[in-house]
């Protein structure tokens, strides 16, 4: 009998913790299968995805000239923008409005029922217990991806084109978005007394990021730098076919921060002051990680039409610039020229030139009055480039003009145009055949039937 054991440490729980992960995962999976919130998410995700997909296919067909209408320029028809992003946009909605309740329940239900008092005494580290919950959430979310994947299969079935790198990049973005949301929801559930309070905290976080996005759009500067990592903005990079290391690292760090805060606050045997100190320590470490992560310049343009890159010849030429390049932009945040400049030039340059700094010198939000009279009026619209002690000004936001200016400033000869395959575009005038049946009838029915089976046949729940 273990009671006869002469000294403390009769069993090394910490060593056993990881080996218990499958048992704990099976338990969390069963709890997920017993969760009404999860099944409601599964039932509703089908019609949500279906609505996005059917609308997207119809619009794509219209743009492709279905029914004898004029077709748009083929090069403008990309399945990433036309089909995948609107279809998978349903998951962004589900992640914001449905998924947090699923994640919160995995913790709040145990806190409210008293099960957490048993869970804390189980022979596993708390971090392993939380890891089991996260793994169950990931597995559950991957099942919720089925309608999205069915949409992809249907698109191929209609004869649609897919570029796998940009498709997988989009899925990675949605996966990281889920992880981030899970981190926030679990931290909220650990901090709050009840599931309802946790839901309010999570919703507050979401609204806060929306407000940040909104304010950053009008003010620019450091706020815009921070807002580039809000869930919506971070996902937008992936939707543009760009895999940015900094975005992925920051999303991962915020998710990890959430899980770590959950671990700290679920240790109810610790004093509140101790938990606050530990939370601060976690925040400092994660803030440092986020800061370092946001510095990472590595990125990969995975879009098939290379929308995030200059032509290859220009990229080779621009890489010769090793000196720090400073760009001072006298354009207000809400000025459409700035948005155009950032999208078509600045973001591409940032990917190529590691020592590039951009400074926003405009004084107002819109530039309307600035350009017509203020102290800075004469300079409004100017974009200054400073390289190795030389400065040059240009007002253009057009790619070839800016590049020519940069070559001149750097003393580099403009490259000859390289022969590279042009993006052909993929028009497709297809009807979303069978999609209504699949997403509006079959999927909800299948989800309801599986729910019923899960309640009555425990084999489905491990």
């Amino acid at each position, binding site marked *: *009998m*273990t*009671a*006869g*054991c*002469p*000294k*403390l*440490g*009769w*069993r090394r*729980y910490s060593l056993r913790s990881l080996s*218990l992960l499958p*048992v704990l995962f099976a*338990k969390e999976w*069963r*709890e997920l299968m*017993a969760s009404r919130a999860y099944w409601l998410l599964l039932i509703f995700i089908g019609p949500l995805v279906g609505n996005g997909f059917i609308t997207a296919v119809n619009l794509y067909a219209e743009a492709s000239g279905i029914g004898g209408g004029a077709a748009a320029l083929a090069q403008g028809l990309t399945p990433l923008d036309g089909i995948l992003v609107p279809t998978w946009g349903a998951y962004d909605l589900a992640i914001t409005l449905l998924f947090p309740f699923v994640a919160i329940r995995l913790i709040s239900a*145990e806190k409210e*029922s*008293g*099960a957490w*008092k*048993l869970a*804390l*005494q*189980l*022979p*596993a580290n708390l971090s392993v217990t939380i890891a089991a919950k996260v793994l169950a959430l990931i597995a559950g979310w991957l099942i919720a991806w089925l309608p999205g994947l069915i949409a992809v299969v249907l698109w191929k079935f209609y004869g649609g084109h897919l570029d796998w790198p940009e498709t997988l990049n989009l899925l990675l973005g949605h996966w990281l978005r889920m992880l981030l949301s899970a981190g926030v929801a679990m931290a909220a559930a650990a901090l709050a007394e009840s599931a309802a309070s946790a839901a309010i905290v999570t919703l507050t976080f979401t609204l806060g990021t929306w407000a940040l996005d909104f304010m950053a759009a009008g003010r620019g500067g450091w706020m815009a730098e921070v807002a580039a990592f809000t869930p919506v903005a971070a996902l937008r990079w992936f939707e543009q076919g760009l895999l940015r290391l900094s975005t992925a690292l920051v999303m991962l760090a915020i998710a990890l921060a959430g899980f770590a805060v959950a671990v700290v606050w679920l240790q*109810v*045997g*610790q*004093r509140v002051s*101790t938990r606050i100190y530990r939370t601060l320590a976690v925040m400092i470490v994660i803030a440092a990680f986020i800061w370092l992560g946001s510095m990472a310049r590595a990125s990969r343009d995975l879009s098939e039409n290379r929308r995030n890159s200059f032509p290859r010849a220009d990229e080779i030429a621009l890489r010769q610039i090793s000196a720090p390049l400073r760009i001072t932009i006298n354009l207000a945040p809400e000025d459409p020229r700035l948005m155009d400049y950032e999208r078509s030039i600045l973001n591409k340059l940032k990917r190529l030139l590691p020592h590039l700094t951009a400074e926003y010198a405009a004084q107002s939000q819109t530039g309307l009055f600035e350009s017509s009279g203020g102290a800075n009026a004469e300079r409004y619209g100017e974009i200054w480039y400073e390289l190795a002690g030389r400065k040059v000004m240009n007002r253009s936001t057009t790619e070839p003009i800016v590049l020519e200016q940069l070559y001149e400033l750097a003393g580099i000869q403009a490259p000859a145009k390289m022969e590279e395959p042009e993006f052909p575009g993929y028009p497709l005038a297809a009807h979303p055949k069978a999609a209504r049946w699949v997403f509006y009838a079959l999927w909800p029915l299948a989800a309801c039937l599986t729910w019923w089976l899960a309640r009555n046949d*425990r084999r489905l729940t491990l």
Partner: protein
Amino acid sequence: MSSRSLSVAVLYQSLSVYNLLTMNLLTVNGLSKQYDARTVLQDVSFSVQQGEVLGLIGPNGAGKTTLFECLAGLAPDDGGAVSFHQQALTAARRKEALFYLPDSIAPWAAQTVRWALKFFEQLYRNRETNGATLAGELKLEHLLNAPIGSLSKGERKRLLLALGLLTPQPLLMLDEPFDGLDLRQTRDVMRLLRRHAGRGRTLMLSIHQLNDAARVCDRLVMLSEGKVVGEGTIDELRAQAGLNDGGLPQAGLEEIFLAIT
């Protein structure tokens, strides 16, 4: 010094010597706990001996559950020390030495009794007993496929007892183990607990029914307003209360309890 105080002092002195001679599994020294300005536990000291059934008794609000939660590391204490086999036992490592089964919890409502028993079996792999045996001993066989949320209070209590007995920690602390059980079930559970104690498992039970405590416990710790007001066997407590001198040598636990508190 009055004769009563003297006899108490002599008793405590002899108890200290006794403690040195016997094997203390768990020793609690000067444990304190406050909620805001309210003192819930004040300088609580006692010991648990290996293989005994120790009863923790006291009126409502005496601090029994808080004491259990502090000992289990589920609530932070404000001072004091806990040692296990004379080695300091930090709050973080309490779960290696003891398991605490709270009262009035309803865990994993959607899961079945069978699953809960199997879950604890898989986690602890206790060679001394198993879920099937305990399900039989606690009359849970017919409930194996029932969701825990559908169980009555007594059924849930029996399931929780089974879960507690599936854990292998040397010390098992049960908060109100007979609450919700009928007379027959209470007797059966008492026998079961005694059997486990007979195999060397140490049990600490918080009981508000003094008759139950007297029937099942080897020794008792009396808690009143967060303080230990008595510790020992019924005879020792009777002596401590001065009831032997007061002409009540056969006084039961209720009289002792009233005299001490």
